[in-house]
């Protein structure tokens, strides 16, 4: 069933308001963008662009599919920014991945940092499927639809990304 997303501050029956969508999904959009780009300011810009597009385009979103739409738009935007800055990356090198733990978590999360950093170091095409599958919990069919690629390609990339991650994390363990 398709529902018109109500983007006024109030909500009518069965529709999510902008406030609700922001509260539910904006942090996920921000963190996925940060994983992709490794830069907080750019991740915030992407998050802004996504929700501005939501307000100005006012798309008809299927119930339960709002998050998929938001993340799809975010990943498209991240991909554009990544490609446009590839020369900088080749010349200047990839920026380091920074964690933002809560104050009481600092010093207690070496494993979590290793995994997050390892994900950040993946190539974009692998990073996308890993973030959508392991972080956001979408299945292969949903990911294929969001990224407009074949399901076989999603499975193949997940498999190869998993191998890369396990190799990296194993290497970290042995150090």
């Amino acid at each position, binding site marked *: 069933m398709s529902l018109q997303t109500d983007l006024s501050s109030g909500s009518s029956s069965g529709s999510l308001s902008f406030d609700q969508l922001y509260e539910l999904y904006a942090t996920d959009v921000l963190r996925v963008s940060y994983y992709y780009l490794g830069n907080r300011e750019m991740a915030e810009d992407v998050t*802004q662009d996504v929700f501005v597009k939501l307000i100005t385009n006012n798309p008809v979103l299927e119930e339960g599919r709002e998050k998929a739409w938001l993340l799809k738009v975010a990943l498209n935007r991240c991909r554009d920014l990544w490609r446009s800055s*590839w020369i900088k990356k080749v010349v200047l090198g990839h920026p380091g991945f920074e964690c933002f733990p809560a104050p009481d978590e600092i010093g207690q999360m070496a494993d979590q940092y290793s995994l997050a950093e390892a994900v950040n170091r993946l190539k974009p095409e692998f990073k996308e499927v890993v973030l959508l599958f392991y972080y956001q919990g979408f299945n292969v069919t949903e990911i294929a639809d969001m990224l407009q690629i074949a399901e076989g390609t999603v499975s193949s990339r997940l498999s190869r*990304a998993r191998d890369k991650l396990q190799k990296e994390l194993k290497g970290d363990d042995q150090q």
Partner: protein
Amino acid sequence: MIKPEELRTATEKALSGLTADESLKQKILLKASESEQKEHEPVYRPVLKLCAIVGVLLLMVTGLNSIRPLSPSVPGEMTVFAAGGKDSSGTSIFAQIDTADITGIKIGNNEMITDSLYDDLIRILQSEAKESEAEVPAETGLLTLYMKDGTEKVFEISDPYLYKDGKCWICSGFFSRLQGINP
């Protein structure tokens, strides 16, 4: 050892201080209202007008040329038109490959792909491959086309990209097709 399956938990801890707060929300609302205002303003588009004028001029030149050639010709002299030129779709390297000239296709160290698939694979590259700007990754595989004249065309590959001589193409369909034949 932490596993990829624990990424959700790991992220909640590693990035718990990175959240979409009220200030970001206000920036979004401000940007949205600014972009709505811009939509209602009349826009002066000089570039479009210039393109329209140039387009009309080109049409006129083409039309005149069909009635009377603009370059003078001497009786008995033949006008030669150069063949080839860049394929506007940017896939000229694949368009030049004739499957009848291929004697073998190999991916990495795997066995040769059977010749019944040459047409399929090359057709996909010719119709779907598009130029891309993706950088060459550290690890790539090799796609080798063995030709009748003894030459080899070698591409570095990393799903969904192919690289050769500093150029890059993206073709997801090619790698999807390969997955159907490589275990």
